Each structure stands twice: as C-alpha cells, then as structure tokens.
C-alpha cells in the first residue's frame, strides 16, 4: 500500500469508559453511545454498546459477519429505534429524532448495498445531499423566480466542488446508476458529505474495490477528515485499510463489544483473534 506509516494516535479515556484521541479531548466527543441496545423480537442484535468518537477522529467498527455492525449504523441514523440506551450527538440526546432530523443534526452515512438515486444524474445526487442547504422553495422553483436561478447556481458550484474531491466533475451529467461500482461508492460518500455532517458513517466503503482503488480511498478519507474537520466512523472488512487509517477501533461480536483500542492493541488482542479465527486447539 502506498500509505505512509502514521504515528499511532494516543487514545485517552473520557467519561463512561469510552476512549477518544488525545487531541480531541478538550472538546466533548461528537458521538457518545451509552448502553445502546436493540432487540428484534426475541433476538438481541446489539447489546450494551458503548462508544465515543472524538471531533476529528477516524474510528473503525469491525467484527465478523452478522456481528451487528450495520445495525449500529441503523441505530445511529434512527432507521431503527433503539430498545435501550442513549445516543448523544454533540451532547444532544437523539432519542426523539427521526432519520431526517438526525441527518440535519449532523450524521450522514453511506450504505453497504449502495443506495444511490440511480435514475438521476451524478450532479443531482450531490444536489440532493445539498437539499437542506439550498434555500429556495416550491413556488420559486415553479415560477422560476430569481431565487431559483441563484439557488441552483450556488448548488451547482458546490456540487462540482464536492465532486472534485474524487475527481468526478467530468461525470456530473452521467446517470448515477450507470457508473462503475467504485465510482458509485465514491458518489455515495460525496452525497453524504454534501449534507454537511459532523460525523460521517461509511458502511464498507472499500467493498468491491481493487487494492489501488482502496489505497486511493484511504487517502481520500483522511483528506476529507482533514479538510472538513469532521469525525468518520467506518465499517470495513479490509483490515489493511482499518489498521492504517483508523485511530480508535471497536470490535463487535454477537452484538457485544469485545475489544476497544488503537490498531496495535486490537491486533494483539487474543479475544479479537479468537473471534475472527476461532479458538486455537490446545496442544
């Protein structure tokens, strides 16, 4: 991989047994989950999930298939209402918020099985991310009043600017559904970024990408964090990606957190190794 070896981030404890990067510690965490849990009928999908993410942290959520990682994302974005526990987004309890309100409050996400507006153009997809940041309303649009032209112009410029992160400006008028797989994943990230989040959730952003695409993606995730000064939480199976860009990592198995720490700590943790590889035979 082309990524230079990073200095490992030092993680420090914050209230309620969670950890965040040392540099973010003078500000409260952007996200804090306390004893979060959800049951589907009799099945407990996630239980006692505790996690904090620093303002500018790139955090990872890993675990074997079916561990409940995407369910955590669905809880954070309120696709599912938690059965137990609290989610604090920038110190505010999201209990009564809907998916839409959570997005407005600052969480944006991508999806494991890509969910683009596939019949719309790339540019329109990004403009939909900008939806709540475009100020004109229905009537100005229907009658093409000056507000419409002004609003569309600003939206177009902003969309192009965001697309330039991944060098996708030349694809602006392409139908999103006809993009190659990797480009669809990147477009999803751009669309999420367009909503101006303070926390970006990426669900397997590197799935289906080749190693060079993955390397480029890693650089871009770091670049996004640095430029926008936001926190990123990602689910990923590509361990090289997770271990090289994530600062704090949370390992989930059967809906429970089994380990938390820096990449080095996680890699050395026998519990994690067992969860991934199974128990080693004695003798």
């Amino acid at each position, binding site marked *: 991989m082309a990524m230079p070896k990073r200095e490992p981030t030092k993680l420090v404890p914050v209230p309620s047994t969670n950890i965040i990067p040392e540099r973010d510690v003078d500000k409260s965490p952007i996200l804090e989950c306390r004893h979060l849990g959800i049951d*589907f009928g009799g099945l407990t999908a996630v239980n006692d999930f505790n996690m904090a993410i620093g303002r500018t942290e790139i955090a990872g959520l890993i675990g074997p298939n079916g561990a409940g990682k*995407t369910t955590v994302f*669905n809880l954070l974005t309120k*696709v599912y209402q938690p059965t137990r526990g609290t989610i604090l987004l920038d110190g505010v309890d999201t209990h009564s918020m809907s998916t839409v309100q959570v997005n407005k409050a600052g969480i944006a996400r991508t*999806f494991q099985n890509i969910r683009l507006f596939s019949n719309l153009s790339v540019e329109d997809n990004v403009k939909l991310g900008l939806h709540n940041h475009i100020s004109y309303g229905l009537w100005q649009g229907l009658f093409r009043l000056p507000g419409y032209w002004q609003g569309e112009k600003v939206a177009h410029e902003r969309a192009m600017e965001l697309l330039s992160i991944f060098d996708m400006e030349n694809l602006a008028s392409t139908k999103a559904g006809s993009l190659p797989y990797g480009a669809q994943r990147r477009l999803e990230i751009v669309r999420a970024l367009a909503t101006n989040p303070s926390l970006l959730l990426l669900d397997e952003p590197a799935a289906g990408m080749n190693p060079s695409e993955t390397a480029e993606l890693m650089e871009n995730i770091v670049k996004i964090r640095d430029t926008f000064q936001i926190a990123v939480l990602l689910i990923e199976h590509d361990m090289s990606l997770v271990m090289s860009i994530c600062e704090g990592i949370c390992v989930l198995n059967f809906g429970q957190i089994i380990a938390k720490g820096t990449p080095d700590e996680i890699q050395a943790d026998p519990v994690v190794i067992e969860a991934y590889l199974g128990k080693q035979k004695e003798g």
Partner: protein
Amino acid sequence: MVTFLTRLINGISLGSVYAIIALGYTMVYGIAKMLNFAHGDVIMVGAYVCFFAVANFALPPLAGVALAMLVCTVLGMVIERLAYKPLRQAPSLAVLITAIGVSYFLQNGAQLLWGSNNKMFPSFLSGDALSLLNGDLRVSLVTVVNVVVCVVIMLALTWFTSRTKMGKAMRACSEDKGAAQLMGINVDTTISMTFAIGSALAAVAGVLYMSSYPILVPTTGSMPGIKAFTAAVFGGIGSIPGAFLGGLLLGVIEIFAGGYISTQLQNAIVFAVLIVVLLVKPSGLLGKQIREKV
C-alpha cells in the same frame, strides 16, 4: 332485536363468501408477494361457467360447480404462468399494473364472449329456510351453505398447509423463497399450486355469491374482489385465519352499514373501514409486521 339478528346472520353469510375469496388473495400475497388484482374476475368466470353448465347444458348444479372449479384452476395457473411469472423480480408497481391488465382482460373478454347483458343466475339453493325464535328469525338455506362451506374450506386449508408436503412447501416459500429452493422445494410449482387452489376457491365463492346476488354481468367479480381484498388486509394479509376473521367482520360491517346507516353509502363505509385498518394496523388483525431490510 330480530332485525339485528337477521342482519347479523346476513352479514355472516356474506362474510363467509368474502372469507373464501380473501383466502385466495391472502395465499397468493403470502407466497408471491403480489396483489392479484384479477382474482375477483376469476370469480366472475367461475360464475359464468357454472351458469352455462346448468342453464344451457342442464348439468346438475354440483357438476356445474365442479366444472367451474376446474376451469378456474386452469385459468389461475395460466394467468400466473403467462403474466406474473416473468415478473417475479420486477418492481411491485409493474406487477400490480399487470394484474390490473389481466383483470381488465378477463372482464372485457367475458363481455365479448358472453355479452354485457344481465344474466339471472339460477338459484339451486332454494330449499326451506330454517325457522328460529318461533318463526321470527329465518335463516335461509343459502346462509347455511355459505357458512358451512366456508368453515369446511378454512379447516381443510389449515390442515393442508400444516400437514401436507405441498402445504409445508407453501409456507416455506412464503418465508424465504431462496432458502426454500435450496431445500429442494420447487418454487415455481409451489406458486403455481397456490394460484390453482386460490382460483378453485374463487369458483366456489363465485357460485355462492351468485346465490345471494343473482345478477351476473362481466364486472360482477370486481366489487366482491376488492372487498375481499379489504377483508384479507383487515385480517392480516398472508394469514389464513386472518382471512376468515376479516371476511366475516367485513360482511357484518357491510350489512350493518347498509341497514343502520345508509344503503347508498354502504360501499363507501366498507372502503372507509379499509383505510382506517391500513392506517391503524397495517399488518391487520392477525398479520405480522414486516421489517424493511436496510
């Protein structure tokens, strides 16, 4: 009091017919996850077949019913094979529009074949009425037959789905088609069988419905069809006891609405019930909630 009981009995009688039709909707929805809009028109075809068998060819009524069941079974399977099977993976909007097309096809085909003028369905259930409460309350033979047939069908289907191999295959398919296929179940055959059973029941329902409302026209099936769908949703779509319960309740509501509120608004009230049910409990009385996978 007698009026109330009479209406209740009429409601149960009509509701039994709705329940039989609703079973067809609910089984198909449970397995193929589609709203078979043409189901109501299969009823109409069944009624016509029985009508011609009895009136023109002088077959005994039971033979007429059997013939109608046979024709409808084949019709149901052919519809499934030609119109719905190619659309298994298509969006639900496309499937629903196709089903509406099939419904229209049957109605207009019937109109061309058999004309649009009214046909009086012969009443072969004109036996003596039962007298209860010193003759104040009369229960017609049609009512007795409706209820008995409905209960028998309901019990038979419950036995079929829980005890027979094909029935279990149906339940497996309604849970998870992919998994069912991996277990060696032939999904296509199972879906085809479901349509066959549903359509055969529609033929029975058609004859019973005609015994209460004997005017037969090509659009005869659409109203009871839509109402029975309402009943299926009411009871919880996909659930066999739900269809039974929903059918009975809807029949009673309809007769009560007509009797106590207004006959002109009878249908409007039935549809209002549908809307309220869908809003308050979209999964119906006995249905289960389905969670969307993200």
